């Protein structure tokens, strides 16, 4: 296919009535169209139409929130694919792991990708929190977005933790046993919370099913909701805040 024949075809397609009914912004590279790309799109409009140039610098955010979000995307995609091969029952869950590792085409790669993305997501979410703290980006008007961020960190930890049980190997079983034994120690409600979480007094098939539902439905939905609020509020609060001004130029920081 030569470039000469492709270009008019694509252009004609982009000018067609059907395409223009789906994508409303024009094709010419004008600032108006660049704005329309963002605010005519339900997904992209969590972003503002314009951003400050310095917020794009690497040291402004170290892209840590972006890395965390990228991990969440990778995890959603690999997670859905893994669900096609997984039964949350004993002992089939463990057999499915073996199937993934030895039978399913690229199954081991899929599982590895999901595992390492999960580890990176926990790590980068934590680093993101530290970055925001040391840049003092939690200050008004961003107070509540900091709290949303803490909720997201906890949801991330719970997602990782509930996923930890699903392979149903010794590592999963005892890792979750150790953790839920800690929950038992909470005064008054500890025992009940543990029972609710496990569907019994020990980690069993019921626990596997509950963790599966939490991991694949409830917690991802919670993550999606809070993440949307989180990114939306970044826009509403005037974009990402990097190092606060007194940090960037400490000598001239007290001018006002």
């Amino acid at each position, binding site marked *: 296919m030569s470039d000469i024949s492709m270009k008019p075809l694509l252009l004609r397609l982009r000018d067609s009535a059907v395409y223009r009914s789906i994508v409303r912004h024009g094709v010419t590279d004008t600032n108006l169209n660049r704005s329309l790309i963002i605010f005519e799109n339900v997904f992209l409009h969590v972003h503002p139409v314009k951003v400050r140039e310095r917020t794009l610098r690497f040291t402004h955010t170290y892209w840590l929130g972006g890395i965390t979000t990228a991990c969440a995307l990778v995890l959603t995609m690999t997670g859905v694919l893994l669900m096609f091969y997984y039964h949350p029952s004993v*002992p089939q869950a463990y057999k499915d792991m073996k199937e993934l590792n030895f039978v399913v085409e690229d199954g081991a790669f899929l599982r590895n990708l999901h595992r390492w993305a999960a580890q990176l997501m926990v790590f980068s979410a934590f680093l993101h929190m530290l970055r925001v703290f040391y840049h003092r980006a939690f200050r*008004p*008007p961003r107070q509540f977005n900091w709290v949303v961020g803490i909720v997201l960190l906890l949801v991330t930890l719970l997602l990782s933790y509930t996923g930890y049980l699903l392979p149903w190997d*010794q590592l999963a*079983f005892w890792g979750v046993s150790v953790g839920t034994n800690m929950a038992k*120690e909470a005064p008054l409600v500890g025992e009940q919370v543990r029972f609710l979480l496990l569907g019994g007094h020990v980690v069993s098939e019921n626990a596997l099913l509950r963790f599966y539902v939490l991991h694949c439905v409830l917690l991802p939905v919670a993550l999606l909701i809070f993440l949307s609020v989180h990114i939306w509020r970044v826009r509403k609060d005037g974009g990402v805040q990097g190092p606060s001004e007194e940090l960037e130029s400490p000598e001239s920081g007290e001018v*006002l």
Partner: protein
Amino acid sequence: MSTQPPIVLSESSDPLALPRRVALVRPDLRPAVRQLEERWLMTFPHLIVREVILFQIVLIALGLAAIFFDAPLQGIANPLETPNPAKAPWYFLGLQELLHYFPPVVAGVLMPALVVIALVVIPYARVNLTAGPLWASHPRRKAIGIGVVTVLLVALFSAFACWPIVVPTLFVAAAIFAARKGAAGGRLRRRLARVTLPEWIMTWFVVIATILTIIGTFFRGPGWSLVWPADAAVFG
């Protein structure tokens, strides 16, 4: 510019002020006002393209990791066969390490609850919003206060023989006092002198959390005994 405008609109840097803050400043009276003129870029393509590239970098890095390192998978779960040691995922090993020193209700419930509460209230505590460099004001009073708190913390954690907390606490306290006259010192000490109290506390927390997690992950073997990483049961 030949003629100065009579007033300049500028942002207030008062962290307690409301978001839409406007201050009227007469430039003839306050010549030091910074111009807040900035270059703005269109989100598309400048930000969107960077986000796509970032996603690709993350995906490639994870893809390489997934090719070269296999996710762990042990034998099928067996409630009758307890591994020694039984370890939680790495991000909970700091807590599990605490369990070694404190009663379960303290290590498993009280401490994590305190940490979460402390994190949530950060933006609502006035001290976090207004804090300047620690030693910039009331140095004598602060020196006594920090000294007393350090002694109390060290005494408390020593009573439980929790040295992974005691030692970093002493180091952080030493760093705080080293920063005291830091404004006149070298580059590092000048930098330390600008650190605020909330930042010192967060640093203290992060150092301890990191040390506890590393010990729990790499230096704990059978019966939660201290071992070298080669003998520790390190899991993914």
